[in-house]
């Protein structure tokens, strides 16, 4: 643990490899008791309820097996209704399980950059300040998802979270995470470290929807450690403006026959700068990975769509697919697919395309009576509503609904 602090202190001022540098000093970290706790997530105000619904968090908890809500630094709600799962705030979890600290900073390095370092230093010096712990028990399968929400309620705060998610051997878990800001919040910073541990034969499906305010900066740091025959599916949806976001979740397929799938749906509007990538290290034989992204750049937005597949051993397979549409002369799309092969007998491919809406498609739809604007909007919605695969049917329908909802009114 001392090593963590040592490393973190050295990286205190280390700028991130990607994304603009955020001055942490302009934001304040609130105390963990700033907001009152609630018995149920349904007790939040109607305004908050509506905001949460937009990021897939259902306060009535229909088809959900548990909820976690953190507002700024305060843990407001945490409950689970399933015997196969546990979910609680990290500070509670650290008191309950002495072994939990061994998982911290294993999938994300504390000295990655100043954001991770900041969280590590606070944790070491003051104790945990936020985040959730989720664990599925061995040999259990819960089809309905848990929902976890990070909500920024106050102006100029720096919200931090350190989440640990463990799927024990041969278990299956579905998580929906929604992140949002209150209506009166203009600017804030969210830094979240998420570490996933997918044990042999286990499967995690993680669907994340973001809906931040226009002046919010977001720096998630995510690592996934995968053991033999495990599966990790990551769905990411961002269709509302943000000041800047930079994330590059990284999966380490250390075991054999791992499966990973990363799917992202991104729409850049106004002055948003979105730098979103997915990275997979295929280090166990027989492992396969697929990274798929769809991005639309409007207005003055800048989108960096990155993908990185690295194969280190024989008999691994990876495919990267990155498609972008640019709808404005002032927008920018930067697609960076990276393939790395360090062994014979591996197979990796990519497919990247950036362009405008196909005129022929627009004309075809006008010949059916749609106006040019209606045609363009139908094509863009179609482009973004890719069918998210790999979900159980109940969750697939729900996710489809969430995507349609996010894409509506674009």
């Amino acid at each position, binding site marked *: 643990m001392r090593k963590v602090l040592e490393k973190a202190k050295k990286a205190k001022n280390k700028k991130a490899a990607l994304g603009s540098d955020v001055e942490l000093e302009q934001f304040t970290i609130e105390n963990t008791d700033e907001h009152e706790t609630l018995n149920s997530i349904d007790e939040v105000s109607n305004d908050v309820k509506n905001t949460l619904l937009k990021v897939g968090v259902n306060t009535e908890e229909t088809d959900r097996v548990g909820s976690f809500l953190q507002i700024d630094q305060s843990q407001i709600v945490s409950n689970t209704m399933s015997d196969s799962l546990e979910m609680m705030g990290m500070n509670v979890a650290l008191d309950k399980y002495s072994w939990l600290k061994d998982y911290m900073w294993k999938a994300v390095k504390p000295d990655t950059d100043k954001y991770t370092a900041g969280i590590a230093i606070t944790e070491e010096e003051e104790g945990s300040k936020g985040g959730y712990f989720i664990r599925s028990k061995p040999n259990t399968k819960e089809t309905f998802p848990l929902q976890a929400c990070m909500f920024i309620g106050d102006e100029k705060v720096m919200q931090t979270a350190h989440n640990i998610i463990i799927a024990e051997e041969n278990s299956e878990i579905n998580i929906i995470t929604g992140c949002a800001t209150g209506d009166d919040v203009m600017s804030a910073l969210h830094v979240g470290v998420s570490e996933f541990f997918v044990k042999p034969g286990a499967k995690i499906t993680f669907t994340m929807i973001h809906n931040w305010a226009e002046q919010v900066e977001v720096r998630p740091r995510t690592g996934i450690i995968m053991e033999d025959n495990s599966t990790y599916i990551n769905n990411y949806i961002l269709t509302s403006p943000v000041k800047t976001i930079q994330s590059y979740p990284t999966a380490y397929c250390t075991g054999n026959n791992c499966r990973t799938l990363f799917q992202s749906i991104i729409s850049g509007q106004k002055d948003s700068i979105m730098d979103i990538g997915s990275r997979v290290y295929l280090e166990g034989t027989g492992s396969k990975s697929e990274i798929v992204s769809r991005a639309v750049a409007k207005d003055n937005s800048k989108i960096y769509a990155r993908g990185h597949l690295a194969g280190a051993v024989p008999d691994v397979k990876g495919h990267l697919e990155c498609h972008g549409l640019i709808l404005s002369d002032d927008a920018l799309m930067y697609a960076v697919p990276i393939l790395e092969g360090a062994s014979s007998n591996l197979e990796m491919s990519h497919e990247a395309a950036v362009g405008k809406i196909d005129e022929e*498609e627009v*004309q*075809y739809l*006008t*010949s059916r*009576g749609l106006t040019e604007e209606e045609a363009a909007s*139908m*094509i863009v919605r*179609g*482009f973004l509503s890719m069918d998210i695969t790999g979900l159980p049917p109940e969750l697939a329908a729900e996710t489809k609904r969430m995507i349609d909802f996010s894409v509506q009114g674009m």
Partner: protein
Amino acid sequence: MLLEIIDLAVEVNEKEVLSNINLKIRQGETHVLLGPNGTGKSTLFMSILGFPNYKVTNGKILYKGQDITNLNTTERVKLGIGVSFQNPPAIRGVKLEDLLKVESGQSLDEPELNPETKELARKLKLNESFLERNVNLGFSGGEVKRSEILQLLTQKPDFIMFDEPDSGVDIENVELIAENINILLDKFEKPGLRKKSGLLITHLGYILNFVNADIAHVLMDGRIACSGNPTEILEDIRKEGFKGCIECGRC
């Protein structure tokens, strides 16, 4: 007169493709436009439809008595013009079912496609899972044409242009498509009672074995070389090829 084209000249990419085109189609009539590949048949089709790359440099197009030369495609379609494309583009992510909802005036928020359209689809041998596919993506030749016809049946236009409706379609499906073209063009009504009009574009004329046309026109090098009885003109073309048409005294 339903459609009247007067002295029309059209440029594509600053190159004149059509000139001196004159054509009149009355309500209830079906015309056929014949001619070898590359003579401007599809250009005339796109010009009547008002696609932006087809620039009218002379003449005008009247539809239902209104000058539509300067109207855009959407406006023309709203006046009752419908089309079936030879090679329509695939639109990834847009379901045929959703396009059919728009065409039949339904809102996209309605979960179910209206039963009338579903029944039309069934008659065209397009099942419900087919309707969930992306528009034209990976469709076979016959599926493309049946999807085009289904959309027209939903739209119910007064004047319909069909660009090579039988190309790439097997015999069994040609008959099914022809039957529905006949429905679209009121062919099951007595000639005097027909309300719908059509323009069939075909270079081989095979579809005419199943759909009767009232008048044929042969388009050669961007001009209408001759017009007349479809059976006689087709016979001449089969005997002498399109060259004979130019010399044809009757035209």
